[in-house]
């Protein structure tokens, strides 16, 4: 009799846990899909470049013949990621005129600053927190993070808007900002201590 009650109890606990789990998952998905919806709205539109890469592809990177150190660094960062989404709107188009000179043409299909504001407003505030916002002249940069526990970044969003382009990048997975910041400027160790401060935020 007691064992039966125990089984029942375990069953209920199990169900609650799994429901919780799926709820958490679906809420994560809902939030991601909220970002995903925006991403999808502009995917395929003129002037936009969209990229979506899954961990399956990241696994393959490890098998690629990569010589340079930077590529190796990319592989090591990507190892812990669960996906990358990139959306880029480039307002400039390069064409060649009759004399073979490259000309930069402004498409002006969208205003990058408007896109930046639109995306910023669409980010669910209860899910993502501002990590840093930089306003510099005409460039706006915003980093947002979703932390599962304090100090562990599980998703990183970056929005960049300037008069010529708009960039939205979303990284999912375990993210180490320090490793990313080292990339492409291994010489520039200057200022790393500031980043350490950021990470303990």
């Amino acid at each position, binding site marked *: 009799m007691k064992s039966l009650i125990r089984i029942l109890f375990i069953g209920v606990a199990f169900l609650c846990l799994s429901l919780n789990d*799926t709820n958490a998952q679906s809420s994560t998905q809902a939030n991601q899909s909220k970002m995903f919806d925006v991403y999808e709205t502009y995917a395929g539109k003129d002037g936009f470049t969209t990229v979506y890469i899954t961990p399956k*592809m990241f696994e393959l990177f490890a098998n690629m013949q990569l010589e340079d150190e930077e590529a190796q660094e990319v592989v090591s960062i990507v190892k812990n990621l669960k996906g990358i989404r990139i959306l880029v709107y480039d307002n400039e188009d390069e064409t060649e005129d009759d004399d073979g000179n490259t000309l930069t043409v402004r498409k002006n299909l969208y205003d990058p600053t408007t896109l930046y504001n639109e995306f910023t407003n669409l980010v669910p505030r209860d899910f993502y927190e501002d990590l840093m916002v930089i306003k510099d002249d005409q460039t706006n940069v915003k980093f947002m993070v979703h932390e599962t526990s304090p100090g562990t970044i599980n998703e990183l969003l970056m929005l960049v808007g300037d008069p010529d382009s708009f960039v939205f990048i979303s990284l999912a997975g375990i993210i180490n900002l320090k490793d990313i910041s080292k990339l492409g400027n291994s010489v520039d160790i200057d200022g790393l201590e500031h*980043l350490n401060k950021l990470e303990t935020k």
Partner: protein
Amino acid sequence: MSHMDYNKIKQLLELYWEGETSLEQEAQLKKFFNQDTNFIPEYLRPYQPLFRTFEAYQEETISTGFEAKMMATLQAIQVEEDNETTNKATDTNAQNMSIASAAPTIHMPNPTKPKNSIVQSLYPLMSIAATLLLLIGSIYIYTGTTTNNGEVATINGQVLDINNPNDRKKAFEATKMALTMLSSKINTSKKHLKHLNKFNQSTQILKSKNRK
């Protein structure tokens, strides 16, 4: 019974398993197994319940004084428990304890029998519920973990082919671009932070000057 008889019973049993015993032979088996258990050899006892008739079970009646005896022992146990609890209790709260221990003895004569039978009748239902819960739970977990649809990467909506080295290269370049961009933006923010740091230093100086 002689040793031969046991052998015969064994043979009959084997026939019985084959389903080839006649009614007579079955009656023989029944008769053998319905005798006093002490006369049945150890190795044949496991089969006894198969052939024991209801009559044999009905013979196992409760003796007339059973209920009275039962209640007496129950009360004895209760008294023992009460003594234990009162012994444990300190002098200061002895009074409270005696009141508390007196209460169960009053209600003791009728233990929660009807309640138990209701719970007992629910056992099959409960076990079914437990099984269902486990099943549903595992389905939830299973469907929750297998959501990926096999897509590896897309660029401008075009699905990339894993086996195509060119596509892999493209995906890698895109990843690298994204990460380098993140890196450079983080680093520019660090430069800004540096300015902030200078600001902090100057405010510190101002503060310390104010203190003076």
